[in-house]
């Protein structure tokens, strides 16, 4: 939202639907723990109590012996978030807040790569975005190096390493000069994700046709079509031959077959014949009957 200044929406409401905030003693909890790890919460006094650990992402409830530390075992609390711990001993309530932070070790990557198919030689034509998660599907918000690699057979590998910001990292890459399947790999720590991107030839470069007489017709045939990087243009690409003569015009659309396009047009003396495909114009021939 490209707003030049922040603005406050004046719809503040009171928290009247909830009772007045409780006056409770402070519970001694660790400031933060790593997701999935074991930790303990100290308690004081004697007798029985109930410990609650509450957050939108997870809740725990334990009967506890007051005066003894409450052990939270490894794997008991594995969702990152800000939690409220509440110890109710019947006569009093103690509360404390703490964070469960994501583990630093990436375990899965959510990798969005686009497009899945594009022409060769396109500057910044390929984009990749990654979200980095730990083993418990917590977004790792601490800066994490993420490397991107785009490899195309018989070409040098493009590599970039960026640091994630709040769990997200992105990059742009150029498509290569050769057609074929490119492997786009994102890696963080020991995990990687791969996407395949199909690189197809670009527009033809130097479209050229030749003409020869065949009875009362003219045989037209292009040279093998290649893009500016030398890749053969895909068969099926439409090539248009246009013949114009003394007020008349003939147009023939033919698909490329084995790299060339062929057509026959009537042999009109003085006709002009042109060839084009997509936005690319080829040569023009002026036909003279001999």
């Amino acid at each position, binding site marked *: 939202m490209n707003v030049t200044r922040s603005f406050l929406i004046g719809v503040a409401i009171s928290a009247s639907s909830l009772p007045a905030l409780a006056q*409770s003693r402070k519970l001694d909890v660790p400031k933060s723990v790593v997701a999935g790890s074991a930790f303990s919460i100290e308690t004081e006094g004697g007798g029985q109590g109930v410990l609650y650990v509450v957050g939108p*992402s997870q809740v725990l409830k334990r009967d506890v012996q007051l005066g003894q530390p409450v052990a939270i075992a490894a794997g008991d609390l594995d969702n990152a978030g800000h939690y409220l711990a509440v110890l109710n001993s019947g006569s009093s309530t103690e509360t404390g807040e703490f964070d469960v932070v994501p583990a630093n070790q990436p375990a899965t990557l959510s990798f969005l790569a686009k497009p899945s198919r594009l022409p060769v030689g396109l500057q910044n034509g390929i984009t990749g975005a990654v979200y980095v998660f730990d083993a418990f599907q917590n977004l790792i918000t601490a800066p994490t190096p993420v490397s991107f690699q785009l490899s195309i057979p018989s070409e040098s590998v493009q590599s970039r390493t960026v640091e994630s910001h709040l769990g997200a990292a992105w990059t742009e890459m150029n498509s290569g000069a050769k057609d074929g399947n490119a492997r786009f790999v994102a890696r963080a720590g020991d995990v990687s994700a791969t996407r395949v991107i199909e690189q197809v030839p670009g527009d033809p470069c130097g479209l050229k046709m030749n003409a020869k007489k065949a009875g009362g017709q003219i045989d037209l045939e292009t040279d093998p079509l290649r893009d500016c990087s030398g890749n053969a243009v895909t068969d099926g690409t439409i090539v248009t031959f246009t013949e114009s003569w003394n007020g008349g015009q003939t147009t023939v659309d033919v698909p490329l077959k084995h790299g060339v396009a062929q057509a026959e047009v009537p042999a009109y003396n003085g006709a002009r014949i042109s060839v084009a495909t997509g936005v690319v114009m080829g040569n023009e021939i002026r036909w003279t009957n001999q």
Partner: protein
Amino acid sequence: MISRAIIPRAVILLAVFAASGAFGADNGSVQIEPTNMQGPRPLAKQTATAVVRDYLEAWQSLNAALEQNRTDLLNQDFVGTARDKFAETIEEQARLGIRTRYQVRSHDIRIVFYSPEGLSVELVDNVQYDVQLLDHEKTQTTQMIRARYVAVLTPAEVRWRVRVLQSDSQ
């Protein structure tokens, strides 16, 4: 005729009125910070407005779902990991006989990332809320919490859905 100097204020006021109508009063006060984005893709104003609107609606759904212990209330606004985790919380609450009420006092939202292919938006929200814990309908405590939430939303058919919603302390 409106002078040029007045136009920006008028635009901002219109934005405020439009926003308050769209976002509703159940979200407490809502402050939207200027975007501070990484990424090459520009974020259209309409897209940003839709993202914030759907994000705030997701909070309302989450609050209702946690208070009523109903996982079905998550379906419209949450997807993937976020939905799975909140659904597990609700199932666990129901099993333990507890409910939680989250009464949001304020949101302070900033969009920080729009992925290049347009398939995700990340935002940061400094939220202030009261959380009330009830065990078998007996209130155990009500506490005011300040937390920073990081959310990732992805587009669905007609709305943005929350795929990640995760907090830490401010």
